[in-house]
């Protein structure tokens, strides 16, 4: 579904990604782990289409298409979804209005009928329950005055509503307490399917107790230095990232 080939990315005069290679197939859950500043959020943002990053080399093929040539909204319509690490507050724009605009833009692109107000509300009310969220949030402005946990759950709720094919979660777990974490994980697990791929970007292993990945990749200093199965996450939890740092540039896969 997704193939990242030798991706180089710069921002603010610094090289952040230095040749990332990653292949993700439908039905798989991948976790990308790494210390702060390793470039994992950059990778997520570049996949979503953030224009402040400059791709200086490599390519990203999504469903046989050049993802990097597509505008952010085209990517979303093609089924790419990034759950933001910091969901943006948008005063004055009602949540319901925003979700309806998003859903109908995506449905239209998929050749589906746009939903009217009633159909939309029925769908939204059904999905919002799964995330244990209050329907009243729909009457509020997008993310405005939401708690940290509400914002993160809101992202997963949007994911459930928009039904993307490639889900990218950018540190969705950071700042969440264990109860919120479980709710988020439940929402994500409900979306696992053979047609869908999920990339979980995280600093901590904890989320992976609940969203069990098929593959774990360690990103250090802009490169994937090691890949493995879910047991790699446990190993990282125990021993930390330190042994990958410093000499990370030297070799991949990493030294023993």
């Amino acid at each position, binding site marked *: 579904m997704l193939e990242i080939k030798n991706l180089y990315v710069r921002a603010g005069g610094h090289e952040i990604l230095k040749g990332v290679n990653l292949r993700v197939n439908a039905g798989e859950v991948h976790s990308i782990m790494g210390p702060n500043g390793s470039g994992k959020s950059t990778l997520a943002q570049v996949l*979503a*289409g*953030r*224009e402040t990053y400059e791709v200086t080399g490599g390519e990203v093929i999504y469903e046989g298409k050049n993802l990097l040539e597509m*505008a*952010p*909204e085209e*990517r*979303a*319509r093609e089924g790419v*979804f*990034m759950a*933001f690490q910091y*969901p*943006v507050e*948008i*005063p*004055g*724009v009602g949540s319901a*209005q*925003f979700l*309806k*605009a*998003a*859903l*109908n*833009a*995506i449905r239209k*692109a998929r050749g589906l009928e746009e939903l009217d107000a009633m159909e939309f509300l029925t769908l939204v009310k059904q999905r919002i329950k799964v995330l244990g969220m209050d329907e009243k949030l729909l009457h509020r*402005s997008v993310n405005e005055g939401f708690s940290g946990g509400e914002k993160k759950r809101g992202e997963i709720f*949007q994911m459930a509503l*928009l039904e993307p094919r490639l889900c990218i979660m950018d540190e969705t777990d950071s700042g969440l307490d264990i109860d919120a974490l479980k709710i988020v994980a439940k929402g994500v697990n409900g979306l696992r399917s053979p047609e869908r791929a999920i990339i979980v970007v995280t600093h901590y292993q904890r989320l992976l107790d609940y969203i069990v990945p098929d593959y774990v990749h360690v990103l250090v200093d802009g490169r994937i230095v090691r890949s493995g199965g879910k047991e790699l996450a446990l190993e990282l939890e125990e021993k930390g990232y330190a042994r990958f740092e410093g000499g990370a540039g030297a070799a991949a896969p990493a030294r023993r």
Partner: protein
Amino acid sequence: MTAVTPAKDRYLESFARFEQATTGNGQEWLRPVRQAAIARFAELGFPTPRDEDWRFTSVAPIAQTSFKRAEPSRIALAPRDIEQFTVPGLKGVQLVFVNGRYAPALSSPGPLSDGATVSSLAQAFTDARTVLEQHLARYADYARDGFTALNTAFMEDGAFVHVPRGRVVETPVHLLYVSTATADPIVTHPRNLIVLEEDSQAVIIEDYVSLGAGVYFSNAITEAVVGQNGVLDHYLIERESHQAFNISTLRVEQGRSSNVASHTVLLGGALVRNNVHPVMAGEGGDCLINGLFMATGRQHMDNFMRVEHASPHCDSRQFYHGILDGQSHGVFSGRIIVHKDAQKTDAKQTNKNLLLSEEAQIDSKPQLEIYADDVKCTHGATIGQIDEDAIFYLRCRGIALEAARALLLFGFAGESLQRMKVEPIRRHLEGLVRHWLPQGKMLEEAR
């Protein structure tokens, strides 16, 4: 304070003719105040940017234009001519003024609840003289300001609303000021008096519109007296042509525990100055001042707030949002004055502005004058562009760039509109705002 002398003289000469023309019309009792006002105008003239209250606004285009006093119009408008200005869903009382004069054939001044009066001011000069003598020109201070002095000298017509004690006017009162294109530029001085007695309630909408694009000048003053426990919702809608000059003042005198909301939406006009001046004279009053101004091209919009806390335990909230495009210039001055005895004052002021072009300009100036020691006053202003993070967020959810911009602009304006409680008016204004936005059509479709 110097003025452009020839302009001043024109008004003084015009006043002499006006006085002759109005002799014997039953308004003799007004002569002393008219004469005092014109004398004061002769001293003050028009303000200049050297005057602190007019620092960011030059009224030279008004002072230098040779406006004529509007004569009784021979243009007879039919109801269909003004159909385009109706507010859908507003089945209330409507008074229509054409070039400053009440047009009975276009108006529907009733039905009203028992004892309430909605009429033209011209009618009230004779019918409600007692109330007028008690209140008219008692609050809007013509000694301070040249425009107020001019209006007071020349006032002839406008709306008069009187609600007796304990009565509620159930339907909003829509005051529509229509100006038509004329051969020579004309000046009108609409004058409105709203008297809400103790425990009464009303919603008043002042709505300024143009029929055709001509240069003219509306110099309007509204005095509103709200008695103890009274509730007034006042709306001002400026949607005139981009050639119109409009100076308006809302002066509110608030009694004990009264509740006043002033909502302003400025969309039209070439040079617009909107003064909002509540004086919270009684204890425990509550005042909301909510405004939205959206300018483009070479429009100039000046919002001048003067909120006076004259008694203890009063709350005031000011929220003003500006969107400026093209080469437009916006001004927000928010002065809060807390008098010596106004302890436990709670005053808040927020002004947020979006600049959509490189050449658009905003001057935002808060001013606090606090003479009491136990008060809470806060103010804040922001000036910025459309939030790129928000744009990216919306695009990441499949919303196209232009639609995302439209949503954000409408959302920014919507923050102001959401504070307006009267639904038909809010919906109507939402429509006007959508229409204003370049991407408005997209929003219509996405509703």
